[in-house]
């Protein structure tokens, strides 16, 4: 049987931030938001539920979360019920699983929920949870969490290519500015000039507070279906046109030069190739700016600029409105916060809303046709990419 075309036909997110709400309450909240955003959705016809959740066992002391989420949402899936875990890319993994299921005909109508509860009484305990994403018995005892790893990426990038703190601040300023247009963003009401960002305290040198995404609670949800039903829900579905992933290491010692994210180059070529387009065709990209330096290296690995030119690409505003394409119009992980499982799903919500002109004018990309979503996970040792097109099936 031929693979079917699959689209995101609607979605919603909760407010991201330090939330006075439990894991299950965040899922209920996103269920309400999804029902408002997609009023055509009837619970009894949702045959499958995919839950992207990175560490509910540690942050909420809860496993077996897929049926728990189903109950919170009032869903009774009868074909596929599963939770996906890929650390910071858990949400995109859930979407990819739903895409595969619908494409193959195993599912006709699926809900994907991404959720994370990260703010708990002991931030040291939360930091431990972030640490066990690494190769725990080898990297963990040294105190490895994400900030020192990405700090080393920044240190090498600065040494090899002359990248500057000002160029990293340009990324953070752009994404926080976009977050001001997004009421669900954690830092919706905060403004950060480049000068202010450069005065914030160091977290892991050379990275400062404004270079780092935060510990965030939040949930996001999307509805996926095939070309047979998509128009029932939306006149402007976001069609999944390509998908790619790549991983070739896990232990920190195997990260190579640190500045050459070959996995993203491979994953994005796979996804763009399946879509039949080049990186120059993209109108917008939601990329994984867990740290400001990440977005700089991603510009290079995606082929938006030459290796070593990412800092200049940022400073010249080529990923900003009026540039080559708009990168992270939602506000990115820096501006929205990074609830691990929710992030990849919230990025897909942004792509759908951009395609259907549902975002505020201050961040609307004019008439977008193609979008790319990227998540990295762990020590940038996994790269996951999906390409969305607004046009009807080719």
């Amino acid at each position: 049987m031929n693979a079917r075309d699959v689209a995101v036909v609607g979605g919603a997110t909760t407010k991201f931030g330090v939330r006075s709400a439990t894991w299950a309450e965040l899922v209920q909240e996103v269920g309400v938001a999804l029902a408002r955003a997609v009023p055509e959705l009837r619970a009894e016809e949702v045959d499958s539920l995919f839950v992207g959740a990175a560490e509910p066992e540690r942050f909420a002391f809860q496993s077996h979360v897929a049926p728990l989420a189903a109950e919170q949402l009032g869903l009774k899936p009868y074909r596929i019920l599963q939770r996906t875990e890929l650390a910071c890319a858990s949400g995109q993994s859930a979407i990819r699983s739903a895409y595969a299921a619908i494409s193959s005909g195993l599912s006709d109508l699926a809900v994907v929920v991404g959720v994370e509860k990260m703010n708990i009484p002991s931030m040291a305990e939360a930091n431990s949870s972030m640490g066990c994403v690494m190769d725990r018995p080898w990297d963990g005892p040294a105190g490895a969490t994400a900030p020192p790893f990405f700090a080393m990426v920044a240190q090498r990038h600065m040494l090899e290519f002359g990248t500057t703190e000002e160029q990293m601040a340009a990324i953070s300023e752009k994404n926080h500015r976009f977050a001001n247009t997004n009421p669900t963003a954690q830092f919706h009401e905060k403004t950060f000039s480049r000068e202010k960002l450069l005065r914030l305290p160091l977290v892991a040198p050379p990275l400062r507070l404004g270079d780092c995404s935060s510990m965030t609670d939040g949930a996001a949800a999307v509805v996926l279906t095939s070309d047979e039903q998509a128009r029932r829900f939306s006149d402007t579905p976001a069609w999944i046109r390509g998908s790619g992933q790549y991983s070739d290491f896990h232990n920190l010692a195997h990260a190579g030069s640190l500045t050459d994210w070959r996995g993203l180059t491979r994953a994005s070529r796979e996804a763009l190739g399946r879509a039949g387009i080049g990186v120059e065709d993209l109108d917008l990209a939601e990329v994984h700016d867990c740290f400001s330096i990440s977005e700089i290296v991603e510009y290079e690995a995606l082929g938006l600029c030459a290796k070593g030119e990412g800092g200049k690409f940022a400073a010249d505003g080529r990923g900003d409105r009026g540039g080559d394409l708009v990168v992270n119009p939602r506000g990115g992980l820096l501006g929205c916060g990074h609830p691990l499982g929710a992030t990849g799903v919230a990025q897909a919500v942004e792509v759908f809303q951009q395609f259907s002109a549902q975002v505020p004018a201050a961040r609307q990309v004019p008439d977008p046709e193609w979008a790319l979503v990227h998540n990295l996970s762990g020590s940038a040792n996994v790269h996951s990419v999906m390409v969305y097109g607004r046009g009807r099936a080719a």
Partner: protein
Amino acid sequence: MSSTAGQRTRRPRPEAALSPPPPAPAEPSVPPSNASRSKPAEKRPFLLDFFPLEGPEHTKLYRFYDRLREGQLSTTRCRRDGELHWPPRTACPTCRSEDLEWVDLPERGHVYAFSAVLVGAPLGMENEVPFAVGLVDLDGVPLRVFGRIEGRPWSELRIGQTVRPEAYDIGDGRMFYRFRTVD
């Protein structure tokens, strides 16, 4: 059922007022990795931490930790294809052979990249902040190893700094490795 459960209680509540109180537990909450198998279950670690369980009852790589106890960082090498691994393996990732041998690693290396944890340390490491971490290229072997860097403040470290691996007791009998600057 209930009588069986009662027999398993190691420290019954004293029934007479004059009974001496139970002695305070002498063992650390996390026993040494080579602890005897006869330890009662309630004295096992109640919460896993970042450090590995190192004894032969927990890992095939216990010799790595035994060698650390002798002050030496070591790893495995495949006897079939000669590949040197880091971290040590129980099977060669390239040829899948399980015929591996232990080899000692060089006592000197150079820092490839480093940073420091100034805030946001994991549980149990909060009091060690600030601490430096880095990737170290060991001299003469194609291996890069990540670890803590001790010996001078992070602000005085430089890429290329000479360091040596050292072993240390984490405080409960388990061993781990880190790097120390060499002038």
